[in-house]
């Protein structure tokens, strides 16, 4: 089962009042990846970061209509989801393999406006990440730990400034799985991305909105809850140097301090990870029981 989540970012340069198709971030595309048609793909959320108020429009002939489709007002300087807010129950739009989504923004006439789409694949051919659902998290979760990194974003509208999760504080236990519950940023941008082989080398992520910490710090848990499934990404600390955090923002660039909220998991509870075969098998003395307060 090739489950994956991908944040696809894009930007429009000086869109003004004209709907302007977004240029996808380097290496990304608004064409839905080729998937098994029998396993749905979902547009889980969408958000935008405009310095000036505008509109975010997502259209496709395969969706409701190609006239206006999903069109929402984007308030200035507030990178909150305008579609599919995973706070509580929500509803995801089903999207289709190889469909080229038309994603457009209006905004300021002298600025770079940015948007992000969160796409969830239930079975992506040849690509697979490691994800767990909430019951599994509750069953195998051990301790909360946070990692803090400093990302210097680029000013081109693309994702940039990738740094390893252990670049600032290297406190993860060797050969141990960690679930990412979500994260927080201290500065407003469009999207925070986390990339690594454990996510199939696709970028999982959340809105880069510092004033909605209650939402973003628990983002993936809320996704798993709202969309009822395994949408909480898991990575192994053996891959920490290659698991990176980056940010997409507007033409101002900026320096972002990002906190990721992780939960240490019991050893070998999530398939597909590093087995800890080399040196410190079993997660460096991690406890073997887990649970949540009842």
């Amino acid at each position, binding site marked *: 089962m090739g489950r994956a989540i991908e944040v696809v970012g894009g930007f429009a340069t000086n869109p003004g009042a004209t709907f302007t198709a977004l240029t996808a971030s380097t290496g990304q595309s608004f064409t839905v990846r080729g998937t098994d048609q029998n396993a749905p793909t979902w547009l889980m959320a969408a958000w935008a970061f405009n310095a000036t108020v505008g509109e975010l429009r997502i259209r496709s002939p395969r969706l409701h209509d190609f006239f206006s489709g999903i069109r929402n007002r984007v308030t200035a300087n507030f990178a909150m989801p305008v579609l599919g807010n995973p706070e509580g129950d929500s509803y995801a739009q089903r999207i289709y393999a190889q469909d080229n989504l038309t994603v457009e923004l209006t905004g300021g006439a002298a600025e770079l406006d940015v948007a992000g789409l969160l796409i969830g694949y239930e079975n992506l051919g040849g690509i697979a990440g490691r994800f767990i659902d909430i019951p599994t998290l509750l069953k195998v979760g051990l301790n909360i730990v946070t990692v803090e990194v400093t990302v210097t974003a680029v000013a081109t509208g693309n994702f940039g400034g990738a740094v390893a999760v252990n670049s600032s504080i290297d406190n993860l236990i060797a050969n141990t799985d960690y679930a990412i519950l979500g994260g927080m940023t201290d500065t407003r941008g469009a999207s925070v991305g986390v990339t690594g082989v454990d*996510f199939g080398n696709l970028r999982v992520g959340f809105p880069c909105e510092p004033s909605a910490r209650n939402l973003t710090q628990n983002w993936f848990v809320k996704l798993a809850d709202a969309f009822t499934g395994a949408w909480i990404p898991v990575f192994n600390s053996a891959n920490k140097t290659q698991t990176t955090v980056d940010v997409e923002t507007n033409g101002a660039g900026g320096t972002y301090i990002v906190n990721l909220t992780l939960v240490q998991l019991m050893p070998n509870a999530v398939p597909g990870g590093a087995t800890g075969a080399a040196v410190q098998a079993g997660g460096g003395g991690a406890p073997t029981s887990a649970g949540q307060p009842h």
Partner: protein
Amino acid sequence: MSPSAPGIEEDFPRGHPARGDYDPTAPEAIEWARRNIAPLGERDFPVDHPGAVDTAGNVNRITYQPGVDPFNPHREAHTGRTPAQVEGIRRLSETASRAAVESPVLQPVDAAAVNAALDQKRIEVRRDVLTADEYREVLAGFQEAPREPAPAPAPPPEADYDTRALAMLTQKGWREDTARAYIAREGAEKLLRLAGVIR
């Protein structure tokens, strides 16, 4: 208003409008009115109560915006930095952003397969944390190998074409019965192709 003599019981306190010697301009009358008349309606706290917003020194009337120090509104929200600090950090950040590099584009992979290969490498080098070169070496093997093709998309059922053609025509202002007759005559797939909705 005559002063009260000691030991004499008065009918109303000084300044009260019911007193026979009531003088609305007298300081006592003004003070009484200040304390007892609420022109805006019922008060939550009596006059001069520490909880009343019009009591001197009370800060309840101040609006607290998220992240803003109301006593230092010139400072940056959420950080408390002075404008000079903000400007300095903005300049530094701008310089750093110009020097920052875009994130590398990675080949999507199957995490389980790559992790198994990485484990083999870890056993080989007898280290858990591989170097960037060792990662590249392992991943290169995957990127050179042909990927499994994605399953071919199944053609949508005919009923789906009918529904979409009907939706397309009704959105263009066709009446539903006319649209249905037109679809039955021409075929939904043909109409959708002509409209460029499907290829």
